[in-house]
């Protein structure tokens, strides 16, 4: 089964999906430029550390290109177990930031295990679907116990941190992979019903008060402009007031005068949309679309099912992040704290994004050729 090892390093470099990598680098560059504008208001040069961190991450990803993604097949379970342990550790020993236990401090390193959980779920599911092969007629309800367990444990642990956004992201990415692996219609119906039940249960017993407020604020943002709806409302004002041409880099009043919350992380898109307008927003969306479509093309050309599902998982990760993040800052979705790949400041989120790109490049470099 070890077909990849036959390809030489030179071939890998030649066949690497350079278009995808260039677009990813461009988006990262735009992100850093955008952070530089947002930094002016905060008087903190976060763009510089983002530049350094993404630079290192991309460098490492490229250096690892000659290493076949098959290694991930073996790493999948150990990594998953490690992530679950880390999530448990966060639950009991984590740092509390903004009312949620998300961080784990290991000496000088601050880790956000929930970010890693997304990757581990992709790795394990890709391995499972490789092992199972294509099921004629698709997965039945009872065939799904293993994937559901693989997803449910880290997602549940993330939800109780509480980190609703990441938990939903894990479910969305895993759901995408499972659907692409094919599920029987009957199983789908049962799962759908179960999902609704879980949602109701979650609302009643799991979600914290502030999370419910956010969801309610999303449903009627005007009701409480100064409370929970404040962020969403200010964000929509930022985006909308960008109009066609934008206010210019460093000129966004919502950003520079601090009306916009969380400018470096969750609301970076609003900064960008305010300063670059509709023109810039369209280009940015085009960038994400390019990455997604090039990534899916790689998935269809993958050497094996393992690679195909890894690629789909990487695209799903980027896509769902972008969709939920932009949807949330434009008032389409509740504010749940999901970052925008390439744009948001943050080591864990930056690392996840670059790893996803690295996986795509790795799978792409070993695609079938005919």
């Amino acid at each position, binding site marked *: 089964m070890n077909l990849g090892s036959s390809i030489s390093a030179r071939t890998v470099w030649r066949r690497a999906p350079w278009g995808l990598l260039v677009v990813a680098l461009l988006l990262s560059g735009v992100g850093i430029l955008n952070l530089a504008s947002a930094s002016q208001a905060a008087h903190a040069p976060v763009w510089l550390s983002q530049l350094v961190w993404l630079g290192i991450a991309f460098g490492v990803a490229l250096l690892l290109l000659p290493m076949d993604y098959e290694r991930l097949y073996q790493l999948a379970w150990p990594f998953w177990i490690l992530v679950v342990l880390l999530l448990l550790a966060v639950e009991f020993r984590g740092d509390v930031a903004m009312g949620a236990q998300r961080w784990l401090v290991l000496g000088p390193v601050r880790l956000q295990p929930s970010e890693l959980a997304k990757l581990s779920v992709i790795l394990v599911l890709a391995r499972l679907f490789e092992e199972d092969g*294509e099921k004629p007629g698709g997965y039945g309800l009872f065939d799904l116990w293993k994937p559901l367990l693989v997803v449910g444990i880290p997602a549940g642990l993330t939800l109780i941190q509480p980190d609703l956004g990441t938990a939903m992201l894990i479910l969305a990415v895993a759901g995408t992979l499972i659907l*692409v692996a094919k599920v029987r219609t009957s199983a789908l119906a049962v799962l759908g019903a179960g999902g609704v039940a879980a949602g109701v249960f979650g609302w009643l017993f799991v979600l914290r008060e502030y999370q419910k407020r956010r969801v309610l604020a999303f449903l009627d943002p005007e009701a409480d402009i100064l409370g929970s709806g404040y962020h969403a409302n200010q964000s929509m*004002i930022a*985006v909308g007031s960008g109009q066609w041409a934008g206010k210019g880099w460093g000129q966004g009043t919502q950003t520079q*005068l601090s*009306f916009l919350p969380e400018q470096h992380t969750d609301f970076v898109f609003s900064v960008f949309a305010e300063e670059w307008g509709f023109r810039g927003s369209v280009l940015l969306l085009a960038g*994400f679309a390019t990455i997604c479509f090039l990534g899916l093309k790689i998935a269809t050309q993958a050497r094996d099912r393992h690679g195909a599902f890894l690629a789909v998982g990487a695209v799903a990760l980027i896509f769902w992040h972008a969709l939920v993040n932009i949807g949330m800052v*434009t008032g389409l979705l509740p504010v749940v704290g999901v970052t925008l790949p390439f744009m948001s400041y943050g080591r864990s989120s930056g690392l996840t994004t670059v790893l996803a790109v690295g996986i795509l490049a790795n799978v792409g470099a070993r695609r079938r050729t005919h």
Partner: protein
Amino acid sequence: MKLPGSGREDLGLRRRIMVFGVAVGLGLFVLLGRIWYLQIQKGEEFSAKSSGNFIKELRVPADRGMILDRRGVRLVDNRPSWDVYVTPAFCGDCEEVLGRLAAYLDLDAEERTRLDESVRKARGLQRFQPLLVRLDLSRDQLDVIEANRDSLPGVDVISAPHRDYLYGSLAAHMIGYLGEVSPEEMEKARERGLQFVLGDYVGKTGVERRFESYLRGRDGMQRVVTDARGQRIPQLEGLIPKGERFIPSVPGNNVVLSIDARLQEAVEEIFDVPAGAVVVMEVNTGYVLAIVSKPGFDPNRMTGRISREELRAISEDPLRPMLFRPLQSHYHPGSVFKVIASLAAFEHGFAGEVHCGGGYTLGRRRWRCHKESGHGWVTPEEALQVSCDTWYYAAADKIGIDALADMSRRFGLGATTGLDLGWEVPGIVPSVEYYEKNVRGGYMRGFALNSVIGQGDSNVTPLQMAVVYSAIANGGTIYRPQVVRRIERPEGYVVQEFLPEAKRTIDVPRAHLDRVRKGLEMVVEVPGGTAYAYRIPGRRTAGKTGTAQVVRIGTIRQKAEEMEFFTRDHAWFAAYGPVEEPEVAVVVLNEHGGSGSRNAAPYAMKILERYFQILEQDRAGPPSPEKAGPVTPPARTRPWSEGGALGG
């Protein structure tokens, strides 16, 4: 390991990946649509909201017009008062900010608690309402706050023009004072087209109130850029188009009074009694030159600077300092009423001599003259000169009370004078009808005998008496008393002029008036007159004393010093001069002062003397500013009031 692309299963996987691709495309397309909706469709709306976020509109209050005396001397103007406000929505850790502020401003614990409470209680949009911390900072306090701006988020120092009553309590009742506008006043003002904001100051009494619409200017507006915490960002002022940054305020008009500040000051100094009223009026115009009500108050304190305790002390003061006595309080006129009685008697043919044996008997009662030994034979002129009550008892018994009432009304008694400075009492003119209506048993003949000497139910205001004596001096014309000569723009040109207003003439024969005037002159200028002792050398004046009893007639007369203050007689003196060509009338009412001759006449004559001095000064010296044309106030130095507001 199964290879994709090598069978039907693989085609299925590729198809499902492409379905996901379509989903990706759809998802991104939805985002695109949403962004298009926000930025293009609703772009302008959000743009406006964004501007609304960072543009803060500060009111630039208009300078209120000044109040000047007849010669242009500034009595009331404005100076900047630096007031500190805190806005709960912007101060972050409000408790800490207030703590710092309290230290800078030496706020006492009580004030501190009150502020903490208000900040805590502010909810919702209320949190954006600035709360007043302290009015009228000193220069030092202002410097400290400015130096520590950065550690005081949500704290604003706003310069508001503060009303400055330059002469303190001078003419306080007439000028009035300002107070915070009440909701009812706002409602009324809206009907008159004036815009007020809660917390605005508005004239509460006197000229300040009556001429509010002239004095009040139009507020301007300053637009500044602030960040989400409400901190002003001057570097970004460019975000607001230049023409929209500042709308200047339009200052209010100046009110030029008929008051002469020199005379007003002199009167207030001369008339040093616990309670009473003085009116000095031009007899040929009705313009008031000085109008005094004692005790007084300081409008500077009343205008938003008074504590609850001080206010309570004022409202509980038995002398009622806020009462504008010349028009808001009426008194028995006593013998100053006798000029009207004489004219009524003459009109009904009673103009002969009467023998005074110390009183007059009607039925079983005897009405006493103030001179118990009697005056002997008394002519009508002598009756005024020595204030012989007996002559008037005889006259009243003959002509009846309605003749007195008729003449009283022709002089304007029983009705307000129309000075139009807030409420005014009309006084009481008793008549047969009045007694039938108000007294059990109805009218009795003796009532006329009480009325004729200004007792009984007769009541007049000092201002009414000034109008009466002016009319006698000017030949019978009743003028509406006025305190304002004109309204001027700040630059000086006249907006409105208030000309003398003759209401009517009393319509009595010249000969009758002359006899009364002769009698009044004898009071002052002929030995035996009740004010002869206080005549002014070199000036011939005329007047009449009055001693109005407060307690029931018939009580044994006591010396004033032996009586309780509030049972003592009111002392009146009404005068005019010069006799040859009368210019000015003076009415003095010394409340519970005692005798008109001893306790009112001296003040009135000193006031007249001062009037003549001022007149001579003006004639001898350079032309008074009034004759040189409208007064333009000198340019004021306002070192730190430009811009009107200081952001925060």
